């Protein structure tokens, strides 16, 4: 058995030695990525398909450049498409070595052009799992277990290439899968609200964000809003990730744009196809649109706010206006 990221015993050892104190963890996103994302890392990607994905953090990684990455996720879309785009344009600066995944596409917005590009040209190593498998692997990691049992997808071809094992249950004598835990080196999570210590309040589906964070050696949290600690702990039952699982907290409004962020904004149904079309052109042999997209929005800006600046105001207003979920109640901002 080989482990990607940390082995269960390494992950335990790492955490045992870690400072878990409640301290101000605010820093710039640039600094956070410099400090916590290394070449060769296994990166756990938060969010689900194009919702609440860590887009801003991926933009920063693409700007800084990281190599030999393993990406671990259940279903992802934009965040990894953006990393794949950076790799497609210059794989000496950014490159993904390996994928542990269940799904890479964009649902209503179509399949992923760059996933096809990377795989059909054998540019990444693949390990396929189901959504539940990847979620449960992070969960096993977050629980401090080396593996977790699972009933699906027994009978599928996934088991022929991934690291799951089938045993006879010692209690029922029926076959059952054991999934090895996943302990990424770094978790990238975007949430609606966090406090300066790293406590996160997620609204809407949690996806697998708490498990990914608690399974990983480090976690970078970006949030749409930094809120007062007192406001956070007024509702302890609503805290989704506890502070001691988080290393860096960065307030990045619209940090999962152009995806959906529950209670903040819906998908940008104009911008996503714009990006996806550029990716599709690249797959078909024409890199110009993709290069221009990155020059305009990723490499040509210093930070995510400058990218958001380039989106027409009306378009930003619109995605907020059509957001169907309960709008977050106003919260006090942390004073600088």
């Amino acid at each position, binding site marked *: 058995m080989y482990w990607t990221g940390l082995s269960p015993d390494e992950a335990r050892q790492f955490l045992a030695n870690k400072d878990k104190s409640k301290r101000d963890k605010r820093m710039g996103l640039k600094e956070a990525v410099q400090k916590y994302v290394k070449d060769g890392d296994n990166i756990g990607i938060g969010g689900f398909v194009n*919702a609440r994905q860590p887009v801003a953090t991926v933009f920063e990684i693409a700007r800084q450049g990281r190599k030999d990455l393993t990406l671990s996720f259940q279903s992802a879309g934009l965040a990894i498409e953006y990393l794949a785009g950076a790799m497609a344009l210059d794989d000496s600066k950014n490159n993904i070595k390996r994928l542990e995944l269940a799904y890479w596409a964009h*649902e209503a917005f179509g399949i992923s052009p760059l996933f096809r590009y990377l795989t059909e040209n054998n540019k990444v190593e693949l390990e396929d799992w189901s959504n539940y498998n990847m979620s449960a692997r992070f969960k096993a990691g977050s629980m401090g277990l080396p593996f977790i049992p699972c*009933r699906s997808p027994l*009978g599928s*071809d996934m088991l022929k290439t991934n690291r799951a094992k089938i045993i006879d249950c010692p209690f029922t004598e029926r076959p059952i899968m054991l999934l090895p835990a996943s302990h990424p080196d770094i978790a990238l999570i975007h949430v609606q609200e966090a406090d300066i210590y790293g406590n996160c309040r997620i609204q809407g*589906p949690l996806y697998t964000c708490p498990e990914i964070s608690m399974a990983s050696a480090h976690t970078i949290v970006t949030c749409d809003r930094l809120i007062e600690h007192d406001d956070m702990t007024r509702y302890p039952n609503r805290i989704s990730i506890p502070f001691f699982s988080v290393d860096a907290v960065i307030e990045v409004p619209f940090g999962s744009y152009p995806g959906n962020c529950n209670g903040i904004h819906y998908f940008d149904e104009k911008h996503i196809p714009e990006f996806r079309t550029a990716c599709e052109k690249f797959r078909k042999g024409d890199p110009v649109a993709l290069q221009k997209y990155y020059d305009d929005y990723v490499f040509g800006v210093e930070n995510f706010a400058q990218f958001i600046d380039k989106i027409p105001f009306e378009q930003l207003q619109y995605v907020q206006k059509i957001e169907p979920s309960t709008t977050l109640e106003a919260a006090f901002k942390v004073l600088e």
Partner: protein
Amino acid sequence: MTKYAEDFTAQEMIVVAGSRTLVDNKVVFAGTGLPMVAITLAQLTHSPGIIPVFEAGAVGPSLSRGLPLSVGDSRTTFRANYLLGLNSAFELTQRGFADIGFIGGAEIDPYGNLNSTMMGEFPENYQKPKVRLPGSGGASDMACSCEQTIIIMVHEPRRFNKKLNYITSPGYLDGTPNARWRAGLAGQGPYRVITTKAVLGFDDETKRMKLIATLPGETVKSVQDATGFELIIPSDVYEFEPPTVEEIRLIREAIDPKGYFVRKKIKE
């Protein structure tokens, strides 16, 4: 008297057939795309008590805020009756709370096994597939652990194959008696396959696919011709009742007015 629609697309027909297959008050785990549309149509017509479950975490939401573009988006969460994450959704399914799983696939075999991973030789070309598909997502989990599954497919010969390129979502596996049980699976397996040409089921004994009804404009022959393996054709195959004017209106005006999932051209 019921008024039937005179003009409808194959995708609309699939949605109507999918909707009519659903039963009221059941917990239906919804895959992305057409299943979401079919569930909404069923809720708006004969089965208001259907309880949708979405893999990203939402259980029993009201789908009144517009058609979700993703099974994890904000439109799946309005007035949900439980809302955690992927693990919770799949755990409750593994436990037995999901009566029906409603999924799609790119390729199917006679035993209802599905492929949504890759085209090409497996395992030889797994790392460099001819065509790479998006991957399992939650479909394989639903196929394994929902009590029954309903599959929605485009009906083309190259999608109905004796042998799949890759088994992503288990159906009746090799069709031998109790194959699913022996594999360790919990759910009963595929109940219906709804395609652009027919409603199909599975023979109780052999677990092979059988024709149940032909959709409007199709015949037993046209269905068999579009299928890459031999179907069981029972004597009681019937013609499926065409979509009603109201069903088509609901799909076009109320459920998917922008045509995100329903009017999309069927992809090659």
